[in-house]
């Protein structure tokens, strides 16, 4: 592998990692607040892909993108209200099964509405413009993804650390009951977290599918699981951790594919997960958690 091809692959990896990072944030925030692996998050991401196809069919991209974000946010919040809220006091296994049921429903609904055949993802012309730097060439989306990811994360960190909503989110994730006693409206905060997660998933889906060109009802499953691994790698509950995890997984996956081990790239991600869970269960940036009796 020459230096320029290596550089090319790393560039692709960073771009993929940026999309992963945005999805991983959704996992990490929901887990931080509800202690729930939101299995449906990958499918929300997939649905955002379909929303984009349909809104781009009749609208220019400048209007289509905000619409996709809004519809995806509504979807995420409605899922929380319908499927997770009634189970707040139920055992953790029940709410996880509910998340799996929602994921199952979204996949089947997408198969029913849009058929299982891949649908072409619309092209946003300016994102597809090819740039050449020396011998390396890449489309604009490859450069935009990491920049946009970093900008969104900075904005999100500002929201979490310096606004009233952010304080509420941090309070709820520290201690559910005490936060409630302090007069924080828990359900509102949880809805906001789902809204943020779904918004980032929508942006991530636009960046991800622009490179992949097609959407199927099952194209959310594997990226979803990988992004959860990214969230665990960075330390679940930590936003910068999720971003770093997303980039690590994106780059290592691209390099494995480039080396010819494409069938093992998924296996590698999960092997990584098991290794992290064994040696550093709190991830790179996670807080230590001690179980008390």
């Amino acid at each position, binding site marked *: 592998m020459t230096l320029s091809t290596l550089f090319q692959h790393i560039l692709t990896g960073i771009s993929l990692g940026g999309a992963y990072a945005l999805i991983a944030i959704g996992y990490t925030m929901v887990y931080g607040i509800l*202690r*729930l*692996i939101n299995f449906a998050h990958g499918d929300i991401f997939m649905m955002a892909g379909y929303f984009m196809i349909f809104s781009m069919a009749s609208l220019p991209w400048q209007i289509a993108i905000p619409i996709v974000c809004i519809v995806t946010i509504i979807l995420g919040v409605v899922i929380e209200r319908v*499927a997770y809220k*009634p*189970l707040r006091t*139920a055992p*953790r*296994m*029940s709410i*996880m*099964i*509910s998340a*799996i*049921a*929602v*994921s*199952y*429903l979204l*996949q*089947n*609904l997408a*198969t*029913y*509405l849009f*058929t299982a055949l891949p649908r072409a993802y619309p092209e946003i012309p300016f994102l597809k413009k090819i740039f050449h730097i020396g011998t390396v060439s890449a489309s604009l989306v490859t450069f935009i993804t990491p920049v946009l990811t970093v900008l969104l994360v900075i904005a999100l960190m500002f929201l979490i650390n310096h606004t009233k909503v952010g304080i509420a989110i941090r309070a709820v994730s520290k201690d559910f009951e005490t936060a409630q006693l302090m007069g924080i409206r828990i359900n509102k905060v949880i809805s906001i977290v789902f809204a943020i997660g779904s918004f980032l998933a929508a942006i991530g889906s636009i960046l991800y599918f622009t490179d992949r060109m097609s959407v199927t009802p099952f194209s959310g*499953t594997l990226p979803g*699981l990988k992004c*959860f*691994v990214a969230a*665990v790698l960075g330390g679940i509950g930590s936003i910068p951790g999720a971003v770093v995890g997303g980039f690590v997984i994106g780059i290592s996956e691209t390099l494995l594919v480039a080396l010819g081990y494409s*069938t*093992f790239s*998924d*296996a590698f*991600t*999960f*092997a990584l*997960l*098991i290794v992290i*869970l*064994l040696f550093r*269960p709190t991830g790179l940036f996670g807080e230590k958690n001690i179980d008390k*009796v």
Partner: protein
Amino acid sequence: MKNSKKVTYSIILAAIILAFLFFLEANKANYGMAYTVLTKGAILAVVAVSMNLVTGFTGLFSLGQAGFMAIGAYITAIFLIPTDTIQDVYYISGVSPAIINFKGFLDSTPGWIQALAPYIALIVGGLAAALLAALIGIPVLRLKSDYLAIATLGFSEIVRAIISSPQLDTITNGSYGLKKIQGFSSIIQTFVIAGVCITLMVLLIRSTYGRAFKAIREDETAAEAMGINLFKHKELSFVIGSFFSGVSGGMLAMFMRSIDTKTFSVSLTYDILLIVVIGGIGSVTGSVISALLVTVSKEWWLRFFDNPLYIGNFQVPFFRTGFRMVVFSIILLVVVLFYQRGIMGKNEFSWDKIGNNFTRFKGFIAKKASKGGSDHAK
């Protein structure tokens, strides 16, 4: 109810089921759909009970069933592909010499061993799955609830990736899958194997080990304080559950006659989880009833959802391909949200309960009758 009476009832029930199966076997041509669906239901019942053993009785939320089934299925398939057609199956990349030698060895064994080949294949497949479960259980079972779920899910994806990798093409035939697998000789064979597997698991659950599993499910710390070796029991439950998952994977291979890695994706695990949840987490009879019920309705009774339906000239909306699965997922969600007990909750089938219900029903009828009588007297 007296024990002798219960035994009589059980024998009668078993005889009725067996008679029904013989009837199906004899009239296979007329009842093809029922035949296929019930066979698949029996196979899924085994894996559902095995998942229930791990998840419902021991409280380990494991989502690795599909991976263990894949191991069992591939090993059973290699055992059971007839030697003379093996070259056709592997026509793309050729057969590994190891398999050829192995098939040659198998053909040189005495006839009675060859007659038992399907059973040996299933057991070896199960043992392989159990061995792998024992190995990964050592690190993975230290994890808590949801981390365990995601780690086992990841493990099952790793198994799938390894099976479909080009490096193993001459053994697993990569992404083309294995075909021409010898099937079951009759539906009775399927049901007997499934029955034996489920009975073994019930015996385990009723033993002291089973009580230890339930103690771990209720409260790990308390169980440990009572002197239960947590790791030993978790590992035991996980390994035995995986053994039966492997066996049912092998049965699935014999039922489908051709398998590939797509069969054993995450959605297979979700399907099994759905069966366990609908049947009741922590009830063996619930899992069995629900496996049969879910399979029969999904593959047969609810088929009409997938076809356009006309009432007179009016076409009922929504009825087209895929609607069945949407209805099914909504049912699952409703069960999870509003009826978490499932069909059976944590209860098991027992003659006593049926007897009690029957007496109560008789009493109810008698009360009604006497009330009516007194009204009449006025």
